[in-house]
């Protein structure tokens, strides 16, 4: 109940803005073909609900798969990078590449490699979301307290044991931070991939745009935001469950 009540302050600006937008369009201050009235967005959502929710499902699956892949690969790469300074210096710059490459530019390349369909969308979500996982996981692993590492050395623990029993659990809060960022990016990556690859919410946005259906565009964008929020909430839930007994952030 407390959690529900804490959501109310966040809803107030939303209600105010929605009401203001509705009035602005209705009384002609803002042209409806530039900014759709919230009521028309709602209507579009209801009218095209089968199409929109089908697209939402498609995008959700692609975003989720891309996100899971970048979680696994990102953590694995970070573990690899953490093994030595020389390896970090050799390979970390290439990881940064994932952060800086503009997905719009490489999406057509992804289509050539993976074809038109889900694989391209998943690849796009993966490319866009992997870097925060690598960066945060690596940072978490490397910032284990030296005293604890000494402790493990004292009792003869191997590097691998130290990794799994000490560095990994200690890095968990930071890994989860990385996952929070990556989850939103995975949705963005999926949508961009869908512009090029042609399915899901991205496709709905693209097609509606060429039809000059701004209301439908907004409806699809709204659903994409909901998807991003849902993924974010999922990570928060995982964080709560795993950290609640011992980490300050969940207390």
């Amino acid at each position: 109940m407390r959690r529900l009540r804490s959501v109310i302050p966040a809803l107030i600006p939303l209600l105010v803005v929605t009401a203001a937008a509705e009035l602005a369009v209705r009384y002609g201050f803002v042209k409806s073909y530039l900014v759709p009235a919230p009521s028309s967005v709602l209507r579009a959502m209801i009218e095209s609900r089968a199409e929109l929710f089908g697209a939402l499902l498609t995008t959700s699956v692609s975003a989720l798969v891309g996100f899971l892949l970048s979680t696994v690969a990102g953590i694995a790469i970070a573990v690899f990078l953490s093994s030595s300074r020389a390896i970090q210096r050799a390979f970390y710059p290439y990881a940064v590449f994932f952060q800086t490459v503009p997905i719009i530019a490489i999406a057509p390349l992804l289509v050539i490699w993976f074809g038109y369909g889900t694989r391209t969308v998943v690849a796009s979500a993966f490319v866009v979301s992997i870097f925060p996982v690598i960066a945060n996981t690596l940072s978490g692993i490397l910032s284990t307290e030296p005293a604890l590492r000494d402790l493990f050395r004292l009792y003869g623990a191997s590097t691998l044991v130290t990794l799994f029993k000490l560095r990994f659990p200690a890095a968990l809060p930071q890994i989860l931070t990385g996952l929070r960022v990556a989850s939103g990016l995975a949705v963005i990556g999926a949508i961009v991939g869908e512009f090029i690859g042609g399915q899901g919410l991205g496709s709905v946005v693209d097609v509606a745009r060429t039809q000059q259906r701004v209301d439908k565009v907004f409806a699809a964008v709204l659903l994409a935001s909901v998807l991003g929020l849902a993924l974010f909430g999922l990570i928060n839930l995982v964080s709560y469950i795993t950290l609640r007994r011992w980490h300050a952030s969940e207390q």
Partner: protein
Amino acid sequence: MHRRSFLRIAPAIALLANCGKSPGKIRLALNWKPDPQFGGFYAAPYQAHGLDVEILPGGAGTPTIQMVGAGSAEFGVVSADELVVARSQGNDVVALYAVFQNNPQGIMVHASRKLASLADLFKAGGTVALQRGLPYARLLEKKYGFDKVKIVPSPGGDISAFLADKNFAQQCFIMSEPLTAKHRGADVQVFPVSDAGYNPYTTVLVTSGSFLRKDPDRAKAMVAAVREGWRAYLDDPKPTNQRMNQLNPSMAPEVFAGVADAQKPFIETDETRRNGLGSMTEERWQTLIVQLKELGDIQQAPAADDCYRAL
């Protein structure tokens, strides 16, 4: 009336778009990169007609019709069906000059597939890349059905997917992408969309209704300059092609020249020889409006003579 005057005083969103523009400057927003379809616009003698025109090149998805409606450009280039849809939504834009008298939209396929018509294409399987939301695509869907082919988004001017796959068909301008593909060694065949009965004016110069009312003299001057520009371009495209090629190096110079040549029959027809380059008829607009209504792309049909103005 009260609503209109409020729009003039209040810092409405549309006015924000006008910030930073020097007084008297006219912006012309193109809906693609500089290429032969805009030749006449680049060749036009604007200064001789007392106009200070800035051409804004576009690309994939440039929202020219919204830009004109919002006032971030005084003139824009759109296709006629876009204009009809926009008008039906309350966007007061008016067509002044139609570059392509006939719709140059088509679907290009690999000649090796030995297809005879659009009907064949949609029965033959494979992939067809088109912009699904465009009215012509919806017309094709209605007429031929898309269940036997895989529809994917159009890659814009990029023909690499087409070149890589014999069973890939792609939306194009009849005199443009096929020439590029031939230049790269492909053997192509093109089916005009107009064969299916869909033939809107294309590459149409439009302006907003408010600009037309506020500044009819400059609108007239603009059309005159554009008409002269197209005449000049048709007679000798080389100097303008050079200018445009510099702005858009993605097309080879030979292809530029080839396209400029191939597009002539779309621009100069018996109609234009009678009534002048860029002229339009009410009948053509009315046909288009009826087609769009049938397709369900518009709810309310605008009046045909509201859609265009002969200046």
